[in-house]
């Protein structure tokens, strides 16, 4: 028994934010460090 889940490729959150004029605000107001996902306690 093996099961496949199809993934759909869609516009990214970054694209949506750009198109709604919100990306600059997001980047200015949030420290952008994708590494902290892997070090929760440090973050």
């Amino acid at each position: 028994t093996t099961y496949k889940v199809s993934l759909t490729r869609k516009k990214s959150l970054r694209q949506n934010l750009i198109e709604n004029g919100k990306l600059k605000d997001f980047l200015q107001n949030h420290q952008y460090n994708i590494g902290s996902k892997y070090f929760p306690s440090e973050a």
Partner: protein
Amino acid sequence: TTLMSDEPLQNYLDMEYFGTIGIGTPPQDFTVIFDTGSSNLWVPSIYCFSYACTNHHRFNPQESSTFQGTSKTLSIAYGTGSMTGILGYDTVQVGGISDTNQIFGLSETEPGSFLYYAPFDGILGLAYPSISSSGATPVFDNMWNQGLVSQDLFSVYLSKDDESGSVVQFGGIDSSYYTGTLNWVPISVEGYWQITVDSITMGGEPIACSSGCQAIVDTGTSLLAGPTNAVANIQSYIGASETSYGSMAISCSSINSLPDIVFTINGIQYPVPPTAYILQSQGSCSSGFQGMNIPTASGELWILGDIFIRQYYTVFDRANNQVGLAPVA
């Protein structure tokens, strides 16, 4: 039980691959990221009144005959705010599997109003249970514990071009998605899907990881991420410069002149061509490398996100704690 774990939602900023799951009886559908870089399943709930939730599907436990509530709460603090909520049990439909008695988070607050624009509702984590917030059993562990899949592994194929065609396969491997043979790499630390990389070279020259380093294979991160300094070197070598959008712009013509960047893992070379590490969108190009700050004590760490997985069909083997890699077909 409330257990804070902090993940930044930034990793999901460039995510493009999403799947649909159903939760409850009858199933309520949600669009989720299948994320090998985390271990919890959570979706917005009707108890969430954040701005972000108004634009997403919200789980209503009163409309599910199989829902069981708990007194446990969940808090996953993102760099941009916290997803807080309660934990409950219900049946989760994933690709034809009825994953009964699955624990999941029902969010009451969402990490940041900007999530209003997110193309996904929630996250389905596929990393090890050891990093799961509140000790919640991850979806794939629950599937395996209940004997729902025949092999204790799952595999990921990410299509380069089409909107469709990408697949997460639970309990099996499909050889039509790759060429040659799968090379197996032992997991170095069971938590994330973490492996050891021998070196990273460009045009035959070492550019990072010169004495070996660690890497996490993460479907929940779109780019190739590494230490800020090493990535800054790569950005300058490939001629990328920062834009006001936070991305690194690069001339599209570089695609024809730049060399492969080669990750050597367990003695095998995994070249990533410029067609992969230079992202093209609406006529402009940007670098697929992203610098990240991590605690120095952790040593050099790289994140092999979707850019890498689009090149290499990946098997996440829990039975043998190893990752299988082969060039996509």
